[in-house]
């Protein structure tokens, strides 16, 4: 009876919520109050795929859903990003019959790293994809090893783990797990590999298991690459799904020597997201030809790039995540490598988070702003409340001081750009700050 009531309340709550434009976690919250173990009482689909990691999970989940749907499967996933237990409950119950049977072939869940253990208390994913674990929102996450420890209880023995072989930390989830239930994706040494690490910190310098020195045959970015601990032997395992060649200039990724995928977005991070999605879908029995067809030139719906004009400037806003240096480095590298035309760059740090207040800016020191030290970046505007913190950080780059200017007031920076110049403009900022520019009357958004 409680089960029936919980489903009814959840469905009704979701219906009303949609009408009034409310979020998707509240109906699940009520359902859990009525029946706390409701998730263990419903009949779930044969495949429950969870995706987590510091970066790329939203993109990976979107691609997995697109592939599985193209292969004829019915997929339910949390497109609205409600990835805590309440949101998952809403998603499951609103797609269930009143008898509690979910009407789908696959339940696909983008899972918050810190809350996964709670979300999966009452049921376990059949496949668990971990894209990577590195420095991300340390004000709430502590540090990557803290997140690892929080995530570990979510990995049930019967769950098949689909892990990034190139990440020395998240690969440790295989420790103590049945080896037959671990599948690895990774990238061979290829055109973008380097012998020296990049980035402002060396989280790959020490083994996450024993803290011995690690050696790398090659790096792909940050601590992602072919590592080997000189003390305990922790090393990159052999991969089941492999990027055997990557040509970012031509925009072609080759998986397992024969599956060629055209890249709509030519970045190493996109390559890893595709590889994770490929591995998960292959494990669900999807033919590689279908994956190739769906993912070639796939443009993400949740794309974080926004084109616009401001005066005579053609602008591209690259949404990063504050407090996530890898996300910033990704976009700074894009500006460095994707164009050689003269351009101006705006970096906006006005509110560190849209969810909570903090004045914590130590993460600026983890970002490799020297990527902007290149000829075609002619001017850099440091904007927002924390423009001075940015300026102190820029004082420790090799970028000449005459190239960057401070505009704590974003409107003032926009007005200046509107009245002057016609060079391309790139904006690097977070969800919390992007609309402070995009909503200005002088800014005209354009379709991609």
């Amino acid at each position, binding site marked *: 009876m409680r089960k029936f009531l919980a489903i009814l309340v959840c469905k009704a709550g979701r219906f009303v919520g949609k009408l009034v434009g409310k979020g998707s976690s509240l109906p699940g919250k009520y359902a859990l109050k009525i029946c706390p173990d409701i998730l263990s009482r419903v009949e779930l689909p044969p495949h429950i795929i969870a995706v987590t990691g510091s970066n790329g999970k939203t993109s990976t989940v979107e691609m997995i859903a697109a592939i599985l749907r193209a292969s004829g499967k019915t997929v339910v996933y949390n497109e609205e990003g409600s990835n805590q237990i309440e949101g998952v409950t809403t998603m499951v119950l609103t797609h269930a019959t009143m008898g509690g049977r979910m009407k789908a072939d696959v339940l696909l869940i983008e899972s918050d790293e810190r809350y996964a253990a709670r979300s999966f208390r009452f049921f376990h994913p059949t496949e668990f994809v971990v894209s990577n674990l590195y*420095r991300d929102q*340390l*004000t*709430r996450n*502590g*540090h*990557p*090893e*803290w997140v690892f420890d929080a995530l570990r209880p979510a990995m049930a023995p019967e769950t098949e783990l689909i892990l990034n072989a190139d990440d020395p930390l998240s690969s440790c989830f295989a420790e103590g797990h049945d080896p037959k239930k671990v599948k690895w994706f990774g990238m061979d040494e290829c055109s973008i590999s380097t012998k020296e690490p990049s980035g402002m*910190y*060396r*989280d790959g*310098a*020490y083994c*996450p298991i024993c*803290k011995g*020195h690690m050696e790398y045959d090659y790096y792909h970015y940050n601590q992602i690459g072919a590592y080997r601990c000189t003390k305990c032997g922790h090393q990159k395992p052999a991969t089941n799904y492999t990027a055997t060649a990557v040509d970012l200039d031509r925009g072609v990724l080759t998986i397992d020597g024969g599956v060629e995928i055209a890249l709509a977005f030519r970045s190493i991070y996109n390559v890893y997201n595709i590889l994770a999605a490929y591995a998960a879908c292959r494990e669900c029995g999807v033919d590689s030809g279908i994956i190739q067809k769906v993912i070639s030139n796939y443009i993400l719906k949740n794309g974080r790039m926004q084109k616009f004009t401001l005066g005579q400037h053609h602008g591209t806003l690259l949404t990063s995540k504050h407090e996530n240096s890898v996300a910033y480095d990704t976009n700074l590298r894009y500006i460095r490598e994707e164009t050689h035309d003269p351009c101006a760059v705006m970096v906006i740090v006005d509110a560190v988070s849209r969810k909570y*207040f*903090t*004045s*914590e*800016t*130590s*993460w*600026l*020191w*983890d970002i490799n702003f020297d990527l902007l030290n290149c000829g075609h970046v002619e001017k850099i505007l440091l904007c927002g*409340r*924390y423009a*001075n*913190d940015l*300026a*102190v*950080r820029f*004082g*420790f780059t090799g970028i000449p001081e005459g190239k960057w200017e*401070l505009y704590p007031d974003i409107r003032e920076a926009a007005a200046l750009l509107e009245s002057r110049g016609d060079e391309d403009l790139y904006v690097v900022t977070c969800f919390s700050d992007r609309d402070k520019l995009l909503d200005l009357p002088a800014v005209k958004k354009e379709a991609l």
Partner: protein
Amino acid sequence: MELKIIHFYPDLMSLYGSYANAALLRRHLEDLGNTVTVETVDYGQTADIAGADFLYMGAGTERSQKAALEDFRRFGGDVKAAAADGTAMLFAGTAMELLGASVTDCDGKVYEGIGLAGFTSVQGKQRFVGDVYATTPLYGPAVVGYMNKCAVISGVETPLLSSLNMGFGNETEKGPEGYHANNVFASELTGPLLVKNPLMLGAVIAAIYRRRGTALPEDIPAYPYEEQGYAITEQQLRLRWDKK
């Protein structure tokens, strides 16, 4: 002057932009006309601690901290002698815990600290996180920063921050934070501490000069970005604190 900074385990203990404390200190010392060398120390490497003007270690994960401690213990006697001799030093983030008598991990395993001070650190499965707005006996204006730790630190008799208006201190909410004795500075505050607090950086520089018996130059360069950065953070945190 020719000054030497020793930076212990810069890669292992590198969370929360820790390197910026050492980088900014170096920059300021050079701007005062000094020649500064920075010597980094990793596992098993030697260090002439007696010949250093400043010792520094930054924040690391709890596992990295234990690995650092295992190696750092061999310097314990030298570091204590340097402290007694007035050498300036900063142990930031989890590095602070190494100076005490012991560090207990979240499973109850006890690790012996170097015993420069008598305090003890007990780590748990909960993190204390949040902005900090604090008072220090060293100067009038507030100290700002961010707390991100999982240890309760007991037995500090001479804290660096005497009270907090906002944030978690050594062992309680709004309680005293850090450790300070003579020229030894220690704090779990990130920011990084010396970057976010120009006056704390000034206090460290004064300590370095004091030990050398050299007066600070009268003409000290201005750092408007650092000053403004501090002023805005101080204002923002005070606004929040006033609202409560």
